């Protein structure tokens, strides 16, 4: 029986110690915060309960029958622990909803301690009313003084008798008061919890509320109710219930501190808390083990042996450190190294975020991580918007409008100079006249987290106050600082990825456009016994602004066109496609070349701005009489090389197409003969440049064509393109290059 007692004593001590440590950690973690002070106070008084119980267990056997234990000072000190009940009520007035801040007379709250302080005084000072009464006895008939003292002494006796009456029933009376306090506190807490909307805070408060409520409820069942309704509970049941209440109540507070960041205690404190709990468990196990071993040894040897005890302690001392280490690690793994430890958050964040490229998904993941890691209420994003080339506050659930931030905004420039997260309060020098500051105030921003790569500001996060109401501590700010680097990486990755997707899409579109353009070019050049035509078009980009076409006009007449739109790429290609379509329809309706070009010019002038134009050479070859009629609308002069080696330029026509309305074109006629060669080209050929910025030029073209005029057109084209590439090796080529060559094989000899 004695051993059971000592185990109970040890268990009480351990729990008392853990509760004391909890109280100390909480107060030490955030002394400036009232909630922490009150929670610490509550846990301190809660800790006194088991500690005094343990001390009572030790003292009890030494109390003599003459001075019963129930009346000793130690026993009566036990009542100090009952200050737990008013401090619990005080706690309920501030957690989860702060009701004290709205009080008119804040000092009034201490009144709830009054009954218990009175109670302590009552049991400590008046625990023996007879003694006090004897002191108050005044001898009769001693003159004037006794006349005054007599009635006073009667009054005092009356008061003391009242107290002693109170004392005789104090246990049940204060049990009722304590029960009332518990009921009131649980009521306040539950009402407060109903007002909380934040999911994290609800989880946190649920554990605390149920933990403390169950613990106090158990206490009420074991001690208060029996006292009020005068029935006995067996000692061992009381002890079990006390232990259960301590486990549940203390555990709940500890759990929500470790797991849910209750009271915002820092990681280091949380870790040492885990260490204390593991040590406590280990000491408890040791005591149990020693007890069991003692029993076995006693029954074996028939008596106690000190050597065994010493050996046991030595073994325990050797094993304590490694086992405690393991246990500590286990507890940390289970509780501490979770989403509330920032090293873990970092790890989690990088693993999760690195695979997300969708910017919206990314932002929501960052927001979620911050909310669960720091209990941030809300996170707002301000990022550089590539489209408008400005920073913008992105829309959120509560502020649905995107706010573009003026690049000269003072606060924005202030944020641009930050290197680490900063409380918005600290930026007050930048806030006068800043619209950004007003927007951030609307969003109740407390902390600014700049997102900066090596050179510039990508944007920033605006964090509201924590849902728990705490301000950001140094640990949070360190963590956010480290985290911002990671956020910059993932945000940049996502942007690069989006860019590459966009580029890929554009490339695909361009490839399609290229295909359309190729399809619009003639599949093959017309040819007959008497002539051969070859053509080639090389765009400098995927698509280009050059084109050529052959249109059979019937009656042995073939139209041929070579054209070059100003500019390059997509805009030029669109213009060229338009002209090509018009040519097809105009040649179907008109026989006069000048009219065809005038009409096309009119349309283009109307539909495009004047800096967009096309140079175009249009010719019609009549096979019957081998006559070539043409008009040159501002295009590089085609070169007509005669069989005898003379050459002429086909320059007649008019101004380039699309720049000036009402332009007039004139057609001209040349007769072609056997072995004559007409070389048509665009400026991609003539304006090719070598390294000293010399142009390939018309002169070189004429020379080459003259020298190689006997070659079949296809080979002539190959040859001159090779010659040009030798001259100008720029890749991709500077400009689109198109060549069309007509050669007369057989026909009227020169007359």
């Amino acid at each position, binding site marked *: 029986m004695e051993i059971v007692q000592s185990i109970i004593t040890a268990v009480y001590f351990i729990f008392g110690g853990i509760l004391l440590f909890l109280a100390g950690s909480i107060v030490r973690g955030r002394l400036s915060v009232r909630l922490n002070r009150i929670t610490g106070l509550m846990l301190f008084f809660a800790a006194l309960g088991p500690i005094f119980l343990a001390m009572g267990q030790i003292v009890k056997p030494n109390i003599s029958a003459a001075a019963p234990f129930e009346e000793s000072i130690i026993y009566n000190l036990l009542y100090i622990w009952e200050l737990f009940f008013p401090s619990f009520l005080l706690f309920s007035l501030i957690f989860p909803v702060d009701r004290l801040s709205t009080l008119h007379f804040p000092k009034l709250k201490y009144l709830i301690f009054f009954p218990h302080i009175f109670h302590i005084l009552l049991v400590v000072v008046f625990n023996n009313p007879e003694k006090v009464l004897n002191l108050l006895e005044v001898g009769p008939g001693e003159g004037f003084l006794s006349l005054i003292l007599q009635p006073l002494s009667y009054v005092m006796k009356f008061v003391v008798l009242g107290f002693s009456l109170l004392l005789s029933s104090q246990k049940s009376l204060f049990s009722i008061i304590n029960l009332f306090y518990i009921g009131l506190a649980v009521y306040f807490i539950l009402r407060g919890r109903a007002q909380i909307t934040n999911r994290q805070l609800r989880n946190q408060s649920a554990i605390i509320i149920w933990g403390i409520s169950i613990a106090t409820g158990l206490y009420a069942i074991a001690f208060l109710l029996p006292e009020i309704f005068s029935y006995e509970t067996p000692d061992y049941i009381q002890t079990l219930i006390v232990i259960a209440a301590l486990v549940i109540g203390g555990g709940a507070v500890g759990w929500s501190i470790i797991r849910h960041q209750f009271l915002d205690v820092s990681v280091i404190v949380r870790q040492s808390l885990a260490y204390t709990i593991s040590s406590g468990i280990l000491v408890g196990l040791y005591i149990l083990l020693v007890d069991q071993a003692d029993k076995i040894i006693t029954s074996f040897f028939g008596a106690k042996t000190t050597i065994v005890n010493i050996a046991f302690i030595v073994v325990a001392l050797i094993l304590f450190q490694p086992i405690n280490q393991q246990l500590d690690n286990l507890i940390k793994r289970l509780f501490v190294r979770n989403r509330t430890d920032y090293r873990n958050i970092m790890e989690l964040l990088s693993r999760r975020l690195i695979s997300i490229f969708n910017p919206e998904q990314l932002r929501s993941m960052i927001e979620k991580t911050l909310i669960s890691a720091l209990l941030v209420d809300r996170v707002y994003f301000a990022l550089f918007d590539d489209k408008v080339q400005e920073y913008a506050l992105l829309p959120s659930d509560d502020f649905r409008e995107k706010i573009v931030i003026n690049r000269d905004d003072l606060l924005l420039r202030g944020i641009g100079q930050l290197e680490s997260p900063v409380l918005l309060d600290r930026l007050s020098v930048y806030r006068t006249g800043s619209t950004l500051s007003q927007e951030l105030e609307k969003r109740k921003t407390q902390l600014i987290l700049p997102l900066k790569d090596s050179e510039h500001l990508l944007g920033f996060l605006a964090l509201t106050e924590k849902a728990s109401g705490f301000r950001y501590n140094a640990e949070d700010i360190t963590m956010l600082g480290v985290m911002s680097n990671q956020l910059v990486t993932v945000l940049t990755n996502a942007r690069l990825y989006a860019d590459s997707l966009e580029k890929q899409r554009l490339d695909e579109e361009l490839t399609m456009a290229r295909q359309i353009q190729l399809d619009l070019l003639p599949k093959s050049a017309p040819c007959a016994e008497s002539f051969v035509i070859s053509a080639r078009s090389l765009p400098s980009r995927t698509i280009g602004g050059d084109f050529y076409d052959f249109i059979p006009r019937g009656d042995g007449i073939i139209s041929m066109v070579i054209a*070059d739109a*100003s*500019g390059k790429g997509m805009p030029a290609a669109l213009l060229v496609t338009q002209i090509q379509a018009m040519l097809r329809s105009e040649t179907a309706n008109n026989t006069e070349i000048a009219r065809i070009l005038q009409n096309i010019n009119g349309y283009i002038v109307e539909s495009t*701005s*004047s*800096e*967009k*134009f096309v*140079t175009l050479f249009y010719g019609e070859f009549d096979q019957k009489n081998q006559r070539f009629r043409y008009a040159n*609308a*501002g*295009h*590089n*002069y085609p070169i007509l090389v005669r069989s005898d080696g003379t050459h002429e330029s086909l*320059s007649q*026509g*008019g*101004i*380039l197409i699309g*720049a*000036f309305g009402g332009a007039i074109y004139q057609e001209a006629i040349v007769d072609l003969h056997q072995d004559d060669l007409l070389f048509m080209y665009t*400026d991609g050929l003539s*304006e090719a440049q070598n390294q000293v*910025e010399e*142009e390939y030029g018309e002169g070189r073209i004429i020379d080459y064509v003259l020298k190689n005029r006997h070659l079949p057109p296809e080979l002539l084209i190959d040859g001159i393109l090779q010659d040009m590439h030798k001259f100008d090796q720029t890749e991709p080529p500077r*400009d689109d290059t198109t060549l069309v060559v007509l050669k007369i094989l057989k026909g009227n000899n020169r007359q």
Partner: protein
Amino acid sequence: MKLNHYEKDGIAILEPKGKIMGGPDATLLHDQLHEFIEKGKKKVVVDMAQVEWMNSTGLGILISGLTTLRNNQGELKLANVTGKIQSLLTITKLITVFEAFDSVEEAVKSF
């Protein structure tokens, strides 16, 4: 391209330098011409003496300058057109719409 400008006998003279190639050049010239128009200077001479080279986009810039001024009852004339630019204007037959002079003085006098 660099773009200087000055005034001579109430005529605005533009002095492009280097290569006229489009992109930022277009905006530069366009903005300068609009500034002239807003100030009521609608007679402009472009001195081509220091223009090394011009591509089709550069040509488009000149054409657009001419039409802009003409739409505002103004006129754009060219001076010191030589070499490649001369032949470019000839081939495209733009020489028929642009009045070109051998010197700035002659161009200014012609107004």
